[in-house]
């Protein structure tokens, strides 16, 4: 299914075959604001392979969207700044790439869909125009051919009566259909990586399942890598291969999805799992992690999670825990990950 005409000439041959398709390596992003420097991303590393789904989990302000925007190169700089780190796509650091070379990759080979499709689609252009734009601009297609392609894509994301709806505008579609249009636009040029930033948050539950199903299906057919950013654990379980949990701009736990669900190795992931409402505990009070997410302007010293952590000891307030390896392909940024894993007190 993969489009074999991708222009590989823009990339050097130094890419080692064993390195994953996309690697985020020790990435830092900060924002200059009037109140001071907001350190939104503090040394995040993760990777995605072709055909793999990485779920990036975290609450608002955890840095998960900012990381994604840094990958895409759509951060407003200034105020944003990337003082350190690399984003390697097929071995090439995107951050060091000149602008025009990067926009050859953006949208074509690495593309992105956003949370709120109504505001993410341009209100004054028809959906056919907006999907077709990908082909007209990137492939130099005629208006007519681009329209044909748009219909094909709308069929592919299962928009009913695609041909008749080509000239409709975003506001004339339902929320789920709008997100399908976003997806159609993002997969138009068969990207190798698709970043989905909370793609189902603005939708109701039944539609959420449909959209997730559609994404999973497209990924299966095309072997692209999928980065699924979400704060919803329920969305993740069925589709993701591995999970990176973010807190305060860092990855606090990284694990294959089933390992994490079975036995979290970080107090924050554990808290997240315990706060999922469960039918068998009906009538009991819902669990909630104590305290508030950290203020990015005044990050707690040491481990950012320590003020809310039931496992806290004295050194948590001073020492930033590194990502300890915890079994195969797992890591936890907690000094006391063993206790958490063993299901110690909480």
């Amino acid at each position: 299914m993969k489009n074999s005409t991708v222009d590989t000439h823009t990339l050097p041959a130094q890419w080692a075959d064993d390195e994953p398709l996309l690697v985020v390596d020790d990435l830092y992003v900060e924002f200059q604001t009037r109140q001071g420097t907001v350190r939104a991303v503090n040394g995040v590393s993760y990777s995605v392979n072709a055909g793999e789904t990485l779920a990036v989990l975290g609450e608002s302000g955890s840095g998960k969207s900012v990381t994604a925007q840094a990958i895409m190169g759509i951060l407003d700089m200034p105020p944003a700044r990337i003082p350190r780190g690399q984003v390697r796509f097929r071995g090439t650091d995107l951050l060091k790439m000149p602008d025009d070379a990067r926009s050859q990759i953006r949208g074509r080979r690495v593309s992105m869909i956003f949370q709120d499709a109504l505001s993410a689609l341009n209100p004054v252009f028809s959906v056919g125009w907006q999907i077709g734009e990908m082909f007209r601009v990137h492939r130099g297609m005629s208006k007519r051919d681009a329209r044909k392609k748009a219909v094909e894509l709308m069929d592919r994301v299962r928009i009913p009566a695609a041909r008749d709806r080509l000239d409709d505008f975003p506001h004339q579609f339902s929320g789920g259909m709008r997100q399908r249009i976003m997806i159609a636009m993002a997969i138009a040029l068969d990207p190798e990586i698709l970043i989905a930033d909370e793609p189902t948050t603005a939708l109701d539950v039944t539609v959420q399942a449909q959209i997730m199903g559609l994404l999973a299906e497209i990924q299966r057919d095309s072997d692209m890598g999928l980065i699924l950013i979400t704060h919803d654990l329920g969305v993740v379980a069925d589709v993701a291969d591995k999970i990176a949990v973010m807190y305060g701009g860092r990855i606090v736990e990284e694990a294959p999805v089933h390992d994490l669900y079975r036995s979290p190795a970080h107090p924050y992931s554990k808290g997240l799992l315990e706060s999922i409402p469960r039918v068998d505990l009906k009538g009991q009070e819902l669990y909630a992690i104590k305290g508030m997410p950290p203020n990015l302007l005044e990050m707690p010293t040491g481990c950012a999670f320590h003020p809310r952590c039931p496992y806290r000891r004295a050194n948590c307030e001073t020492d930033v825990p590194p990502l300890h390896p915890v079994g195969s392909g797992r890591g936890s940024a907690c000094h006391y990950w063993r206790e958490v894993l063993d299901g110690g007190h909480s």
Partner: protein
Amino acid sequence: MGRYVIRRLLQAIPVLLGTTFLIFATVYALPGDPIAALGGDRLLDPLLVARMRETFHLNDPLLVQYWYYISGVVTGDLGTTFRGVPVASFFQHKIQVTFNLAITALVFEAILGVLLGLYAALRRGRWQDQAILAFTLLLVSVPTLVSGFILQLVLGVKLKLNTGIDFFPVAGIQDGWRSYLVPGLVLAGLSVAYLARLTRTSLMETLRADYVRTAVAKGMPRRRVLGRHVLRNSLIPVITYLGADLGNLMGGAVITETIFNLPGVGQQLFQSVYLRENAVVVGIVTVLVLVYIVANLIVDLLYAVLDPRIRYD
């Protein structure tokens, strides 16, 4: 669409009746006798005065006077001045002059205002942005009287004397479209400032919109993001302002017309209010109101072209 246009034009009728009556009543209420004023320092023959008052229905109550006037207008008779000149005879020409001036100013306003606003928004926070903001402040604070005379002197007189370039006439309308360039620029000054600021704000807002981020994420070149995705959305408030401003420009042309000696309605209006020439004042104001209504109708129709979420049916 067609029905909407017709409905809007029908709505204009009560508006026109209302405004004409208000203006008529205002001029009626002014102190002094227009007929006696015709004689200047000399006293007129009381018989003549009485006869003229009779001819112009000046002895009738306000509503009756208005009725005579408006039924004349409906049948195509704009009335005559107290000196016996039919209003229609000089009316069209003067309206044309003012209209030319206002349109010239509007074109200057649209081009300069949008370009300045666009540039400032793209250089937000940098010195170019600050400079444009300061410049607009300057435009707002310098009265037309000053900027008019300065430009007239520099472009109309000095340019010719110092370089021999005889392009901008000093005054009058004998040079065709060139006569309107400098006055148009002067008249546009204030509006350029407002429009530049409006465009800047609107653009900065649109630049932050999610769909602009989407366009960038789609890998669209910057030019295309700005020219297609941003501009069309941010022009909606700009068009509104331009439409409403055409009326303001026509009504506000008095000083500019005086400086550059353009025989437009501004001068005429001023003089006619002074002489209490009700037929002329109301006639001019009616045309201004009509321009206002039509301009706003065009704006509303343009909305639907620019923004598909707006539909008229």
